[in-house]
């Protein structure tokens, strides 16, 4: 069971058009043995939730630079809940002020990673969280 690759959706909600960070993250996760579905920029919350559902991913990683995270992220989590996709690890990245992090944590974003994050730390975080979840599910 544990050798099943971790499936990750990497998406950029909203209108900012810079996806270099998201691509670096996607590549790092690929190199860590994960299966990364990359949907790129200008994703609506509806598109993200639909992709997460159809692809049955373990992790949804949202990257945002525009500052609209407090508007767009809750919409994503609501839609996932609505569709019954509740077993997913939520991770956020991009330009997110420190004071917003507790709010994102409360929405269910277990990890929030800002600029300058070492991709190894991100990968280790996702692997550790997934190991916990899979252990829990196996019991």
């Amino acid at each position, binding site marked *: 069971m544990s050798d099943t*690759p971790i499936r990750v959706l990497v998406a950029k909600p909203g209108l900012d058009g810079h996806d270099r960070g998201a691509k670096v993250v*996607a590549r790092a996760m690929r*190199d860590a043995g994960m*299966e*990364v579905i*990359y949907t790129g920029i200008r994703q*609506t919350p509806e598109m993200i939730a639909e992709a997460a559902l159809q692809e*049955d991913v373990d992790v949804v990683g949202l990257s945002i630079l525009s500052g609209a995270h407090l508007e767009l992220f809750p919409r994503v989590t609501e839609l996932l809940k609505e569709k019954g996709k509740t077993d997913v690890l939520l991770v956020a990245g991009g330009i997110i002020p420190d004071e917003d992090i507790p709010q994102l944590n409360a929405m269910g974003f277990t990890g929030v990673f800002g600029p300058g994050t070492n991709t190894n730390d991100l990968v280790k975080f996702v692997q550790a969280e997934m190991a916990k979840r899979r252990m829990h599910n196996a019991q």
Partner: protein
Amino acid sequence: MNSQLLSQIQNGEPLAVARAITRVERGGNDARNLIRALFPYTGRADIIGVTGAPGTGKSTLVNALAKEFRTREKRVAIIAVDPSSPFTGGALLGDRFRMQDLAGTGIFIRSMASRGQLGGLAAAVSDAILVLDAAQFDVILIETVGAGQGEVDIAKHAHTTIVLEAPGLGDDIQALKAGILEIADVLVVNKADRDGANATAAALEMNLNLNPDKNAWRPPVLKTIALQGKGIGELADAIAAHQKYLGENHLRAKKEAARFNDELRELLQRELLHKKLQNVAAEQWQTWIDEITTRRRDVYAIAEEILNG
């Protein structure tokens, strides 16, 4: 399997279908039981394969084709396969990126990593097809990994195989070669607004002229510009014509027989391998490999020992 889950899958509920595909990808007894329950409800869907070299526009074509089928009142599902890394097992699944038009249309898209399978598909594709078939999709579009000359497994799964070419990839000698061009039921020269599209189409036609069996299906050669949706209606018509031909000549059943013949053999290979190796300790295996690399014994001798063991 409980009857509630079965009916959820049969109703095409995305969550149930998506989870069922994850289970068949994972394999094992759970996958077997699931397929056993679903199998009687399969056999209805039209399975259409799309293959071609990397960058010929497969994902974009699938995006356009899915939209076309949607306007023809078909329920469409897509399986898009991309390669897994031979080193880390990881994969970047980027086909969905080019299918953004399909969001919110009810079209079900699933990206799959090849997970070490050669031949252009993933090992679980055949089971994923069965899940989508049982979920009552009318059309299942399968996009292979970017294929070279020899990745032809798609033809064993699909009723109709579309092979994509793009202008400028090779001369008329490439068109003569055995392999991927032979599996085409429909040939498409995509990116037809680029220089050399007519020459590419002509080379393909010339090659078809040399087919010895004049009574067999002759694959039409179509030109498309998938990004602009041009030629896609004609492509959908050509697919329909091929499906009609299969039906009239009782070839669909023949294709199905070939598909299951192949699947049964592959399954047996995997199972027999597993059976033969399940009681072999890792140290023993390592000893054998050492014996081979130091040239004390050869692979045939070791294989014989394992088979007789």
